[in-house]
């Protein structure tokens, strides 16, 4: 079998597995967020929090819950890293306290569901920080994303009320009834294939030809599974999902791709269920699926073609890729991780072809909505749907409506603010970093290092860092040495603002929609469950992203890919 055919078959296998669980998981999630009953364990949790799980919240109250919980998360994670040096060695592995700027960056990163890492996991973070801090945020930051998405869906589904549900209930249910059970099963599958799961320290093991090799122990499988399932992406090891202890073989590689995609895609079913028309969910799913498949196909093509002087000389794009995965499966992983807000990597994007690296960048720039992060993908796509409906309304001269709700001045202003946040952060911080004299010194692939004497790849390293941060992805063109006070601070800010400002606009939009009285559909209503609308939606996304980022992309990956 040729490598290309094997790559295509692996893609087909992932699609088939996703199709199999789409309905059951989507329906399960709709039941979880719609149920009036509380599990006994959940009641205990609500009592400990001191929250009334049945109290309805309007959008400002819901937002205050999100922000208070996330602020507590940043504070706790920051302090945990700062006191690491004082913890017993069994918990810290002997690692010292993390510096203030890096601790802020990492705390912001994990609470914002980004998992940008300016540290190397195996030589900075002990068991306590990894398991009590980072892995916990992998669960709860994902649950926060799903809660906000569900609040927006309720905004469409409900009428003449401003109430969006209860944040604490949505948070706890998302964690306890969705993420935890899937993680236990997934973690055991990974261990059965070879991912490690222990609490051993750093220890030497023998080598065949003499000498020893140092190996880290750790609760790796349990963290790996939620890292993918919650579209987080922060690796236990520096090499992330390329490390054999995180991702031991070709099957686990596909399994991890599946884990990344399963909730974001299935949430479109949940959405359809909650608004009472599953076809509306299918239209959103179709738009997501078309973009994901299209990007994956392009990525496979460019990686198999391996343009670029060094890759041509080597005879293939295997720099920064693992033998057991090969080029095809690595390409699927790369588009999957950047089209969601994951950022886990099984191969290193910086060594991809110029166009391949550009595709990973463009995937993130689309706003990570195809299918996007858990929750954030759905609410990002629904905001784009609001904009697509508005554009269609302008074309035919009708007041736009979506799911029976009028898209008026207030709604479109909120949607516009939402899509402006990330480009402002990405382009602003990138420009600032290139203009100052210090920050460009972090670049690995600087102009003098290129066979074309072009600084294109070096510029891409910086653009990638802020695109990844502001979009809450977390992957990197890892040549950039981002562990400097400048990058730790600015990327930290980009991650927090890129996560929580959009949430403000989404919840305000949800509140505004929930207050409306539904408009009955007429013959002139745009049929948003039809393929025509899915096509319009894809078009709107591509045009808006293209117009925003084309100049920056032309300076970086396009210049590299075309030279």
């Amino acid at each position, binding site marked *: *079998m040729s490598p290309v055919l*094997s790559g295509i078959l*692996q893609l087909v*296998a992932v699609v088939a597995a996703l199709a199999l669980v789409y309905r059951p998981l989507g329906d399960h999630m709709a039941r979880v967020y719609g149920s009036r009953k509380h599990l006994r364990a959940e009641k205990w*949790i609500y009592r*400990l*929090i001191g*929250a009334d799980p049945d109290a309805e919240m309007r959008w400002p109250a819901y937002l205050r*819950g999100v922000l208070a*919980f996330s602020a*507590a998360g940043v504070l706790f994670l920051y302090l945990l890293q700062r006191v690491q040096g004082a913890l017993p060695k069994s918990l810290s592995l002997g690692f010292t306290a993390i510096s203030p700027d890096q601790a802020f960056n990492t705390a912001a990163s994990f609470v914002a569901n980004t998992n940008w890492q300016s540290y190397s996991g195996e030589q900075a973070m002990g068991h306590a920080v990894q*398991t*009590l*801090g980072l892995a*916990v945020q992998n669960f*709860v930051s994902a649950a926060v994303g799903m809660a906000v998405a569900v609040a927006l869906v309720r905004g469409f589904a409900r009428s003449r009320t401003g109430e969006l549900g209860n944040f604490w209930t949505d*948070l*706890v249910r998302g964690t306890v009834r969705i993420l*935890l059970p899937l993680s*236990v099963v997934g*973690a*055991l599958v990974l261990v*059965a294939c070879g991912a*490690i799961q*222990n609490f*051993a320290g750093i220890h030497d093991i023998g080598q*065949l030809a003499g000498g020893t*090799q*140092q*190996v*880290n*122990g750790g609760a790796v499988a*349990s963290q790996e599974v*939620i890292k993918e399932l919650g579209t987080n992406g922060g690796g236990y090891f*520096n*090499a992330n999902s*390329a490390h*054999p*202890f995180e991702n031991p073989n070709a099957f686990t590689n596909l399994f991890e791709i599946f884990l990344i995609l399963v909730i974001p895609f299935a949430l479109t079913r949940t959405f359809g269920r909650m608004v009472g028309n599953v076809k509306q969910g299918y239209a959103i799913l179709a738009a997501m699926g078309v973009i994901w498949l299209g990007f994956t196909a392009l990525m496979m093509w460019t990686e198999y073609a391996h343009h*670029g*002087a*060094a890759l041509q*000389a*080597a*005879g*293939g794009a295997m*720099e*920064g*890729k*693992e*033998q*057991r995965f090969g080029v095809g*499966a690595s390409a699927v992983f790369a588009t999957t991780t950047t089209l969601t807000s994951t950022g886990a990597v099984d191969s*290193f994007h*910086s060594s991809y072809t*110029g166009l391949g690296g550009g595709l990973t960048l463009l995937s993130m720039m689309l706003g990570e909505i195809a299918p996007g992060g858990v929750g954030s993908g759905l609410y990002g796509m629904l905001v784009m749907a609001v904009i697509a409906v508005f554009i269609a309304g302008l074309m035919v001269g009708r007041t736009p409506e979506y799911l029976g709700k009028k898209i008026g001045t207030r709604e479109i202003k909120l949607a516009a603010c939402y899509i402006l946040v990330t480009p402002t952060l990405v382009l602003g911080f990138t420009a600032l970093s290139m203009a100052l004299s210090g920050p460009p010194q972090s670049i*690995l692939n600087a102009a003098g290092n290129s*066979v074309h004497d072009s600084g294109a790849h070096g510029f891409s390293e910086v653009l990638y860092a802020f695109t990844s941060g502001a979009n809450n992805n977390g992957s990197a063109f890892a*040549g950039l040495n981002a562990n400097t006070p400048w990058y730790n601070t600015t990327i930290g800010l980009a991650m927090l603002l890129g996560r929580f400002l959009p949430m403000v606009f989404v919840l305000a939009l949800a509140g505004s929609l929930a207050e409306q009285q539904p408009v009955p559909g007429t013959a002139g209503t745009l049929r948003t469950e039809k393929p025509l609308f899915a096509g319009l939606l894809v078009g709107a996304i591509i045009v808006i992203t293209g117009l925003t980022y084309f100049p920056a992309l032309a300076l970086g990956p396009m210049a590299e890919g075309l*030279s």
Partner: protein
Amino acid sequence: MNNSATNTIRLLAAGLRALLVLTVVCGVVYPLVVTGIAQAAFHDKANGSELTSGGKSVGSALLGQTYTLEQKDKDGNPLPDPEYFQPRPSAAGANTENTQYKLLVSGASNLAADSRVLLESVEKRRADVAAFNGVPASSVPVDALTASASGVDPDISPAYARLQADRVAKANGLPRDKVRALVEDHVEGRQLGFMGEEHVNVLKLNVALRELAGRA
């Protein structure tokens, strides 16, 4: 004002309590339960899939390792041992301290496709591998010329293993056919026929080689 400050504090306290409760659930109970089951059901795998040969541990089957001589080349890198099959180049910790297969920092080179540094390494590796194995430079496969993603890739392509077979046979004083057959026995196909790439686990192959040479 006073009222809103109290409300903010009350809300933050609720957030903190929620975080602590969920930390116990997701950060203590969950990993302990998974570790418990994993240690009971998959003890060897949960602890790093160590291989033993001749009664002692020779490393993890999942991690690549080095097979080198005491002598060093002019850049100070240890020379490869001709008696063993060699792994892929490693750029582990390239941007911090290059520890090669010694660990602890896994990672890739992150060099760009149009990087002069990478181009020069590829050309040097091609010449080195060809000379070391006594084969034409054009026959060196891509995995022997490029550094892996993890820096501890345990595998090489079947082509790279086959290329090394004659040199290994000669260095160990073994018949060529036996070593070639040993390589073929260690070619692991794609899982279920289509997942991943064909590969040879270098450690497993070298362990078998030592047993063949009667040095286990």
